[in-house]
């Protein structure tokens, strides 16, 4: 069964018909990049999937559950463009930020022991290579380090799917490459399905297996990364193992 199913979804902003009759499926373990030029509705599509916006028509199913009544918050995680719009003066440690990601697992008025929480947070930080920064204030880290911490926050809950909205915006090129490698590892080693909106496909295409392309005329198509690479970058794409 598809882990994500978008079924005939349409969405209009008051002045613009942005998404029209979109249908596609994502299988468990896929690494999908959503690409398209500005204004084609990449982030809107992600917001619709995450139920931050309501579709005018159609349905979206995450692991069989309709997104309109979605309650299995522990199955999904989300990483935004935090590194660019993040309040750098916020007095929170890396551990406090990552701990917040545990909320969906336990919910309102349910608590876990400090020891268990620390163990889960440390494991997530080790996975993203940020364990030694656990006591640092998040705002004092570089953009790339902050985004690694936000990926740890997404990971701490052992999600089945991680959604990312342009996670490499505002980060230097070297850090972009290492974040792309990290996402590739999470997908291959841990089997986490990754769905990522991006405008810069060049670094991430080597780690993804599918590209969901939204064209300027509003059509959507899903192609393999190899095929997309041949068409747009003009070279073969070899997956990193």
């Amino acid at each position, binding site marked *: 069964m598809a882990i994500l199913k978008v079924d005939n979804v349409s969405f209009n902003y008051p002045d613009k018909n942005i998404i029209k009759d979109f249908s596609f499926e994502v299988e468990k373990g896929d690494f999908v990049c959503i690409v398209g030029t500005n204004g084609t509705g990449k982030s809107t599509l992600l917001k619709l999937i995450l139920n931050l916006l309501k579709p005018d028509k159609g349905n979206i199913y995450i692991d069989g559950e309709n997104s309109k009544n979605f309650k299995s918050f522990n199955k999904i995680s989300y990483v*935004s463009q935090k590194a660019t719009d993040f309040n750098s003066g916020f007095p929170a440690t890396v551990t406090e930020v990552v701990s*917040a990601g545990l*909320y969906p697992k336990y919910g309102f008025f349910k608590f876990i022991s400090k020891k268990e929480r620390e163990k889960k947070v440390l494991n997530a930080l080790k996975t993203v290579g940020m364990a030694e920064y656990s006591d640092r204030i998040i705002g004092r880290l570089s953009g790339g380090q902050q985004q690694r911490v936000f990926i740890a926050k997404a990971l701490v809950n052992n999600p089945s799917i991680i959604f990312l909205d342009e996670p490499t915006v505002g980060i230097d090129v070297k850090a972009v490459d290492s974040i792309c490698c990290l996402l590739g590892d999470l997908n291959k080693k841990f089997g986490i399905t990754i769905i990522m909106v991006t405008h810069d496909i060049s670094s991430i295409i080597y780690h993804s297996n599918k590209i969901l392309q939204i064209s300027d005329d509003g059509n959507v198509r899903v192609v393999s990364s190899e095929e997309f690479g041949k068409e747009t970058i003009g070279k073969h794409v070899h997956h990193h193992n």
Partner: protein
Amino acid sequence: MDILIDIFSQGYMQRAFFVALLISIITPLIGNVIVLKRLSSIGDALSHSSLAGVAVGLCFGFNPIISAIILSVIAALIIEYIRGAFPNYSEMATAVVLSFGVGIAAIFSGFTGNAANFDNFLFGSIIATSIFDLYTVIIMSVIVIVTVLILFRELFYITFDEEGAKLSGVSVKRINLVFTIVTAVVVSIAAKTVGALVISSLMIIPVACAMTVSKSYKSNVMLSVLFAMFFTVSGLVVSSVYDLKPGGTIVLIGIIVLLILLCISKRR
């Protein structure tokens, strides 16, 4: 020393001291969320609305604290509504409500009869704390402390990343509403004791001081409470010894400490 012993041996002063301490615990608890959500002006908007409530109460012969609470809660709901309607312009909501509060307060304060009574709410009358005020502040403090403790994780998450909190299953709208109403009630009750024009400072300044030295969110919350307690105690003592307005003295001490901390942190 004898003067201090003499001052604090008075029953009214002990009562004032206790009420001031409670207010200094609850205001930064609220203030942390307000400051870090970049909504510092919400305290001003609600305190001016509470003043409007006081003026209406005094004008029509209701208990001014009750009418202040009602108007502040209405103002808080209007703020939440406007913030929902214009999510990218949340500061606009506080500006609209502040103007609304000032407008009503200005109109009705002219008909209150006893101007001194209205002034008490402007600058506070902590020394004249009644038994009713004492019990009101105790009950409110318990409600605020319990609410903030129960919602600590949720408030942190919403303050830090509202969208992320929503996607993690936090009832963002409901918690924002509860928090705004609690803020409105705190502002109204504290306005009687430390003054409507001063209360928002007591929410903001201790948090600002804590931010210059804290090493985590949790330590920021605890330090802000300690700073607020220090400002309040020292402000009460200084105002008693030199016969000054307690509310103003508390805030000025806070600002002096903040300036010193800012100078020190700039040098580091």
